[in-house]
C-alpha cells in the first residue's frame, strides 16, 4: 500500500503530558497552530523552528508550563494576563535587533484578548509588529472557573451570568474581536473553528506568512465550561459552523467589502437550526424553557451576518 502523506506536518511543538482536561478544544488549537506556523516558517525562511511564543495567562498557559516541566518545544514566554500583545512586540523588536529571522506567535484566550488584553493587542496591531495573535475562543474565563467574558454569547450560563428568576444567563451579545482587529486595517484577519481543522490550519499558515501583524480567532470548545461530553468537542465546533452561529471569514487590510467566506451556503440559508448547536451543551440548557431567548440569539446572529454584509436565513 502506498504511503499517504498527512496534510499537516509531523513536526511537534506541543508535547503530551500536559494537564489539559480530556477532550480540550484549546489543546487541539495549540497543536495545530504551532504545526502550521512551523510549515510557514520553513517555506518562508527555510527554518521550521523560526518562531517564539508569547502567551497570556489562561488555561493553556497553566496546563502547559508547571515548573520544572513544559509541554512546549518552542521558545515560550508567559508574563501576565493582560499583555501578550505587548510582550510579543518586545520579543519581535529584540529579534529584529538580533537579526533573527522569523515571526512571533502571541496566544491568548478570549478573556485575555477581548477583555483585559485588548489594549495590548490593539497597540501591537497598530504599531504593525510582525506578530500573529491567536485568540482561542472558548467563550468564558475557564481557568478561574467559568466566568463570563465579553466573548460569551447571549444566553449562556456562566458562574457570573447564572440564569435565575431575574436572569436568562448572559444578557449581552458577543463581542467580535476579529472585527475589532480588522478595524485596525492589518494585513490579515481570520476566524476559524476546530470543527474545520484544515481550514484553521490553512489560515494559521497564511497568517504566519504575511508580512506584518495578523489576527486569528478560533472557536475552541471547553468540555467543563460548556458542559459537553469530552468526545463532542469537535462535533460542537463543527455544528457552530453549520448552524451559522460561527462565521468563517478572512479580511485582508481591513477591506470589509471583500470579505472571503468559507463554508457559507450559497443561498444564504443555513440548513441546521441553531437549536442543534445549543442542545449539545449544558450551558444553554435553560434556554429551551425560554424560546424567546433563543429567538433573540437568532436575531443577534442575523445581525452579525448583516454586519459582515450577508443576509441569512436561519431555520
Amino acid at each position: 500500500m502506498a504511503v499517504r502523506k498527512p496534510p499537516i506536518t509531523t513536526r511537534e511543538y506541543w508535547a503530551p503530558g500536559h494537564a489539559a482536561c480530556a477532550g480540550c478544544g484549546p489543546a487541539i488549537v495549540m497543536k495545530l497552530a504551532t504545526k502550521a506556523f512551523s510549515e510557514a516558517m520553513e517555506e518562508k525562511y527555510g527554518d521550521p523552528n523560526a518562531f517564539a511564543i508569547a502567551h497570556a495567562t489562561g488555561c493553556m498557559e497553566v496546563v502547559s508550563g508547571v515548573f520544572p516541566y513544559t509541554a512546549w518545544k518552542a521558545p515560550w514566554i508567559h508574563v501576565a494576563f493582560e499583555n501578550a500583545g505587548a510582550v510579543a512586540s518586545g520579543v519581535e523588536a529584540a529579534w529584529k535587533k538580533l537579526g533573527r529571522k522569523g515571526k512571533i506567535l502571541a496566544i491568548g484566550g478570549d478573556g485575555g484578548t477581548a477583555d483585559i488584553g485588548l489594549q495590548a493587542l490593539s497597540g501591537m496591531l497598530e504599531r504593525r509588529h510582525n506578530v500573529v495573535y491567536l485568540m482561542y475562543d472558548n467563550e468564558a474565563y475557564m481557568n478561574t472557573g467559568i466566568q463570563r467574558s465579553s466573548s460569551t454569547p447571549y444566553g449562556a450560563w456562566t458562574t457570573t451570568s447564572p440564569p435565575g428568576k431575574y436572569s436568562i444567563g448572559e444578557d449581552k451579545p458577543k463581542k467580535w474581536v476579529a472585527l475589532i482587529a480588522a478595524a485596525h486595517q492589518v494585513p490579515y484577519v481570520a476566524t476559524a473553528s476546530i470543527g474545520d481543522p484544515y481550514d484553521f490550519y490553512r489560515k494559521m499558515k497564511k497568517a504566519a506568512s504575511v508580512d506584518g501583524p495578523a489576527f486569528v480567532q478560533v472557536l475552541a470548545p471547553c468540555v467543563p465550561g460548556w458542559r459537553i461530553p469530552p468526545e463532542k468537542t469537535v462535533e460542537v465546533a463543527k455544528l457552530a459552523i453549520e448552524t451559522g452561529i460561527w462565521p468563517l471569514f478572512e479580511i485582508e487590510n481591513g477591506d470589509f467589502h471583500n470579505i472571503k467566506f468559507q463554508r457559507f451556503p450559497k443561498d444564504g440559508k443555513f440548513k441546521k437550526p441553531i437549536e442543534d448547536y445549543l442542545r449539545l451543551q449544558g450551558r444553554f440548557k435553560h434556554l429551551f424553557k425560554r424560546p424567546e431567548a433563543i429567538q433573540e440569539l437568532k436575531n443577534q446572529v442575523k445581525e452579525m451576518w448583516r454586519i459582515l454584509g450577508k443576509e441569512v436565513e436561519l431555520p
Partner: protein
Amino acid sequence: MPKKVVSGNYAAAYAAKHARVEVVAAYPITPQTSIIEKIAEFIANGEVENLQYVPVESEHSAMAACIGASATGARAFTATSAQGLALMHEMLHWAAGARLPVVMVDVNRAMAPPWSVWDDQTDSLAQRDTGWLQFYAENNQEVYDGVLMAFKIGEHEKVNLPVMVVESAFILSHTYDVVDMPEQEEIDEFLPPRKPLYTLTDFENPFSVGALGTPADYYEFRYKIAKAMEEAKKVIKEVGKEFGERFGRDYSQMIELYKTDDAEIVFMGMGSLMGTVKEAVDILRSEGYKVGAAKVRWFRPFPREELYELAKNVEGIAVLDRNFSFGQEGILFNEAKGVLYNTDAKPIMKNYIVGLGGRDITVNDVKAIAKNMKEIIQKGKLDREIEWYHLKR
C-alpha cells in the same frame, strides 16, 4: 442568630449583600472568583435590590469603576487577588487620594513568577503605602465581620478611606466553616446607609474632584490622609467595641492577644496562620514554655501603641511573615521593629519567613521556632535576624 456553613469567599459575598452594597465591579481571578459568582447569583435570584454588578474587562477597570461609583455616593465593593491587586495598584492610590471608602476583599495569593495561586501575603502588604486600611482575617467568621466593619469604619466621617479585608487563599477562601450572620435588621442598625463626604450628583454646587494639586496645596491633602489614618485607630476601636456589644464578637483590640500575660516569647503574625499558632501555644504551654500569640488584625493603620504595650513585657518576639520584601525583610517584622525603635521596649526580635506560596505551616513548625527563640534568649544573642524557615536546603 442564623448560622450558615460557608466558605470564606461566600462569607465575604454574604457580608457584602448584608451591607447592602450598591455597586460591585469585579473581574475574575483565582482564588477570589467565587465571591463575585455568589454575588451574581444573588442578583440572578432577585435576592438583592438596587445592586448593580459591572462585569469589567480588567482589575484596573474594576477599581476605576468602584471609584466612579463611590464618588457618585454609592456603597461600592470589589474583590481580587495577587496579580489583580497589583494591576489595580495605581487606582488604589487614587481611591485613597479621592477619599472614597471602597471596600475590597483581597484573597491573599502569591505574586508571580513563578505563577502560584496559593496563600502568601506579599500582594496585600505590597500595597501598604496606598492609603488603604488593612484588616487580616483569621477565619471565615472574621472575613464576614471584617467586611461589615470595613464599611462602617471606612465610611466614618473622620476616616473616609478605603478598606481592604484580607483572607487566605484556599485556607479560608475555599474552606467551609460555620459563620454567624446577624439578622438583616440588626445589621442595618449597625450599618446605616452611607453618608458620603461629597457626591458627583450635586448639580446645585458642582465641583471637580481630584484636580491638579500644585506644590502650594498637594502636601496638605497628603497630611489629611495621614491624619485620617491616625483617627481611624480610634474609630476601629469604637466600631470593634460596638460590634462586640451588638453581635457578641469583640474587635476593640487591633492586636488580638492570646495567653501573652506572663509570656516570655510571643509569636506575632497575621491571618489564618495564627490559628495554627494558637494551637501550638496551647501545646507549648502544656510543655512548660511561657509563650503567647499576638495576632495583628489591623496592619493599616499600624497598631503602634498596642504593640508597645505588648513588647515592653516580653523577652522575645518571633515575627512570622508569610511575605517578603526583597532587599529587606518580612514586612510585618520591618514595621514592628520600626515602631519599637525609639521606645524602652527591647525584646529580641527575629523574623521567620514561613509558608510562602501556600507552603503548609504546622504546629511542629511553631514548636521548633519556639525552641529556637528560647535558645536565642538564653544566649542573649541572635543567630540570624532573618530565617527562611521552610526552605529546602
